[in-house]
């Protein structure tokens, strides 16, 4: 499958660089985000949140708030409990309080809400609610959460006497122990992937509009998964599903933060039901950072077994996972640790084992977010840091060590020791391309010269393999909903088309990319194809956009539905040209008679014929449209090689990321401009996580990172001009060979940055320091005292 098109000019319909169809509205300020939705008579909802991390609610007095002249409604947990709505299921089989009834379990938890005439009045009235708490000791330290003396957070669960959430294991323990026993060398390293937050620039929100006359609920909502949300609202609320319409308008960034159902959405629905008016809820930045889906928070102990000459034999790891107060992980049911099972990385490893324990703490729920591809961020960080630790111990170049252990092209499809079937890859070629762009040997020479002058320059390498496109419905579901996606394509009589898809763009450019996929298949120019998404009444069912599954699942559906339309078009063309189907040849949007290119009909001619009065072949109905539901047979496995170059100031420990080279293999490339943009974003995430970002807590469970003054995100001054490259190894089972790329760089870049900083600090004898490598933390590490952040 040849897939490389440098520019769309070479191929006027289909794949290639093409400016985005979304942009004209955004550059005019005409996007329609959740807070832009204004309805007649709309009321505003504000949430009262817990000021403490753990405490029993002794009483809630709403009298003064109710007396506020602009307040229409005040609702407490007790009032929701009367309606059976105080608790809701999470996406991991746990329950979460919509409004607290018995206890608050994290700082920022929802306790009550006010509905008022304007957003300022709603906030004012929150101040008038008096909640009496009996403060309880908080479990803020994940390492002591399972101590027998630790207070039990989840006493709402029958018989619960500790803070244990779940255990999980994968791999072959006995085989791994045997491999370790035989190894020449074993390196072990404790490492923390701290709690971070996706912090999309647009916070979460909803506008609920319940029509008491027809019993219909319309919910505008910041959701990455509108169809899944609709079904869950129906199951929880008892509202009939056909009367619920979820509209996900323009989304100001998601990154997994907008996958879960939050109490605020449910409260907005309840408020509209009770008041009979549309109700808007928009959270502020502090609410977003302190209460919505965090990411990571894994404490890992990793070990590699190897031969003395650098052949990696086995990997094992123990993980302590902080899941917060409720298990709110949004991952497929059979995968409580997400896809962490790919922690064997990109290497030919003979044995692997992981044992994980997840615990409850008095912190916000979440865990799977921030472009993590269901925890592959943590898995790739573990193996890529361990490989560098091994290189450190064996005094080998980290590139040479990787080249000696990378999977070889002839090994694909490759089944890992933990059961994942990698579809395709050419890892060595990908790594060598990155080395070429970076001039790796030249960088090492420069480093030698600088070290001789006492300057601290570091070169960090990482290689990652992702598993994206969840997933085969035989074993992947979210709360029982199989992870397959629909697509519907209608070609109108004049040959213009409308594609309807279930996934939801948050900036990835689906309106452009998906039009290009259809254009490639049926030859209608992308400009003539409208992509409809984000409205459950207007699109077929599917599970949404996260885990880099849009192109890999919905994109496949778009290609398949276009092929179905083309198949029908072929039958109609044979009638129009009065020739058998076998004698037709397809080329760039038209069917021609074999050997007679002048006898042809275009897809536009066929569309008009299909809707007109002309004769159709036997058994073929009029119109030109189709629908499919695509169930992937396997995940796709994008991969890449990243090289980061840093300078560390020896006097201040400030890290400057000077260069970054990213070579990605995401299979078939649909729009290189959009792919590059996706990669740039993830690289910026990686610099942020490696150097700046962490959601921190004090011993009482107070969140110390509740604003963008405390939770630092990279600006244009902290990141370099990215250098990108690519290789193309199509997925063999995906209809167009595409693999998904939205999260690759977020997964692959943090270890490259940390590896670079550790490489710079080799003169200090330092092998590992944990993220975030802020100047103060790195300063301590350089003085021989590296400390874990939790």
């Amino acid at each position, binding site marked *: 499958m040849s897939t490389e098109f440098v520019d769309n000019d070479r191929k006027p319909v289909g794949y290639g660089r093409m400016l985005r169809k979304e942009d004209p509205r955004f550059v005019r300020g005409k996007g*329609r985000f959740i807070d832009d939705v204004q309805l007649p008579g709309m009321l505003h909802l504000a949430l009262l949140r817990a000021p403490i991390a753990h405490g029993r609610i002794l009483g809630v007095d709403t009298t003064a708030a109710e007396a506020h002249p602009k307040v229409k409604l005040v609702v407490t947990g007790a009032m929701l409990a009367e309606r059976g709505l105080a608790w809701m299921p999470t996406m991991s089989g746990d329950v979460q309080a919509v409004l607290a009834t018995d206890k608050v379990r994290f700082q920022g938890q929802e306790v009550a809400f006010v509905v008022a005439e304007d957003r300022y009045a709603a906030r004012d009235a929150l101040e008038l609610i008096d909640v009496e708490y009996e403060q309880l000791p908080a479990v803020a330290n994940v390492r002591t959460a399972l101590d027998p003396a630790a207070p039990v957070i989840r006493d709402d669960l029958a018989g619960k006497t500790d803070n244990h959430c779940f255990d999980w294991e994968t791999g072959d323990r006995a085989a791994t122990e045997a491999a370790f026993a035989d190894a020449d060398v074993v390196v072990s390293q404790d490492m923390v992937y701290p709690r971070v937050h996706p912090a999309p620039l*647009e916070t979460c929100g909803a506008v609920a509009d319940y029509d008491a006359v027809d019993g219909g609920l319309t919910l505008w909502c910041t959701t990455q998964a509108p169809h899944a949300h609709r079904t869950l609202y129906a199951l929880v609320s008892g509202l009939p599903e056909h009367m619920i319409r979820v509209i996900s308008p323009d989304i100001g960034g998601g990154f997994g933060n907008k996958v879960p159902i939050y109490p605020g959405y449910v409260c907005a629905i309840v408020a509209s039901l009770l008041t009979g008016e549309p109700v808007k809820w928009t959270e502020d930045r502090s609410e977003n950072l302190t209460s919505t889906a965090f990411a990571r928070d894994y404490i890992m102990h990793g070990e590699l077994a190897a031969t003395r000459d650098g052949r990696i034999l086995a990997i094992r790891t123990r993980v302590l996972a902080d899941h917060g107060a409720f298990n709110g992980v949004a991952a497929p049911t059979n995968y409580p640790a997400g896809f962490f099972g790919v922690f064997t990385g990109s290497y030919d490893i003979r044995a692997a084992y992981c044992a994980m324990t997840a615990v409850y703490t008095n912190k916000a729920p979440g865990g799977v977010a921030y472009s993590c591809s269901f925890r592959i961020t943590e898995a790739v960080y573990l193996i890529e840091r361990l490989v560098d630790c091994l290189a450190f111990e064996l005094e080998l170049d980290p590139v040479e060590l990787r080249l000696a252990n990378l999977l070889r092209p002839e090994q694909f499809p490759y089944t890992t020791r933990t059961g994942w079937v990698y579809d395709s890859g050419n890892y060595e070629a990908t790594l060598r391309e990155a080395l070429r762009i970076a001039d790796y040997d030249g960088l090492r020479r420069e480093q030698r010269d600088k070290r001789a002058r006492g300057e601290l320059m570091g070169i960090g390498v990482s290689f990652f393999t992702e598993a994206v496109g969840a997933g085969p419905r035989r074993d992947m579901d979210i709360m029982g909903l199989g992870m397959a996606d629909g697509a519907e394509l209608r070609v109108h009589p004049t040959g213009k088309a409308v594609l309807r898809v279930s996934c939801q763009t948050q900036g990835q450019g689906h309106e452009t990319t998906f039009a290009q996929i259809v254009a490639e298949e049926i030859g209608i120019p992308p400009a003539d194809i409208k992509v409809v998404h984000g409205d459950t009444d207007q699109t077929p069912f599917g599970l949404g956009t996260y885990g880099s599954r849009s192109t890999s699942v919905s994109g496949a559906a778009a290609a398949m539905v276009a092929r179905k339309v083309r198949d029908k078009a072929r039958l109609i063309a044979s009638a129009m040209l009065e020739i058998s189907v076998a004698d037709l040849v397809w080329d760039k949007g038209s069917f021609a008679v074999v050997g007679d290119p002048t006898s042809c009909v275009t897809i536009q001619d066929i569309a008009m014929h299909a809707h007109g009065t002309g004769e159709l072949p036997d058994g073929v109905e009029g119109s030109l449209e189709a629908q499919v539901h695509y169930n992937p047979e396997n995940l796709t496995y994008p991969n890449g090689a990243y090289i980061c170059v840093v300078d560390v100031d020896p006097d201040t420990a400030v890290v400057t990321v000077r260069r970054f080279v990213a070579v990605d293999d995401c299979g078939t490339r649909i729009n290189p401009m959009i792919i590059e943009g996706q990669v740039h*974003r993830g690289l910026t995430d990686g610099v942020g996580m490696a150097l700046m970002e962490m959601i921190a807590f004090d011993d009482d469970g107070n969140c110390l990172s509740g604003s963008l003054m405390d939770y630092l995100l990279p600006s244009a001054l902290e990141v370099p001009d990215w250098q990108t490259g690519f290789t193309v190894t199509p997925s063999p089972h995906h209809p167009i060979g595409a693999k998904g790329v939205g999260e690759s760089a977020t997964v692959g870049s943090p270890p490259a940055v940390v590896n670079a900083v550790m490489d710079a600090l080799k003169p200090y004898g330092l092998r590992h320091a944990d993220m975030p490598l802020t100047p103060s933390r790195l300063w301590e590490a350089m003085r021989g005292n590296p400390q874990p952040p939790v």
Partner: protein
Amino acid sequence: MQLTMTVNGEEVTAEIEGRLLLVHFLRDHLALTGTHWGCDTSNCGACAVWLDGEPVKSCTVLTAMAAGHEVRTVEGLEQFGELDAIQRGFMECHGLQCGFCTPGMLMTARALLDLNPSPSEQEIREAISGQICRCTGYATIVRSVQWAAAEEAGARTSIIDAGTP
């Protein structure tokens, strides 16, 4: 309180609460929803608008402070049906993805080019360092501003060539 200001060239008079933030006045009272509300603390810059030609973060400006002054928002960039070069630059160079930071970025970048028609990469990065973008990684935004600068330089050259003063 009652106040009057000029917004995108048109005089606006309104009765407001004294504590009303400019971002909410623009969005909720004037329905100019291109200006976004992202952080409350002046860190993200999604709310950047011009006050008398200077970019300000409207989430930390009281509406009352704008009384008698001239406000310009992203909706005012397009003139007579023609997009500004900075708007075209962002489309040409993929300077946006989700579009949420874009209005603030455009206003800040436009102000930069008005002061400095040919900024260096570092000058562009410094100018937008008070704006957070979570999607682009900034490189394409830098290119977008450079595109607009080059476009305007070209336009000026051609005007001069045509003998226009």
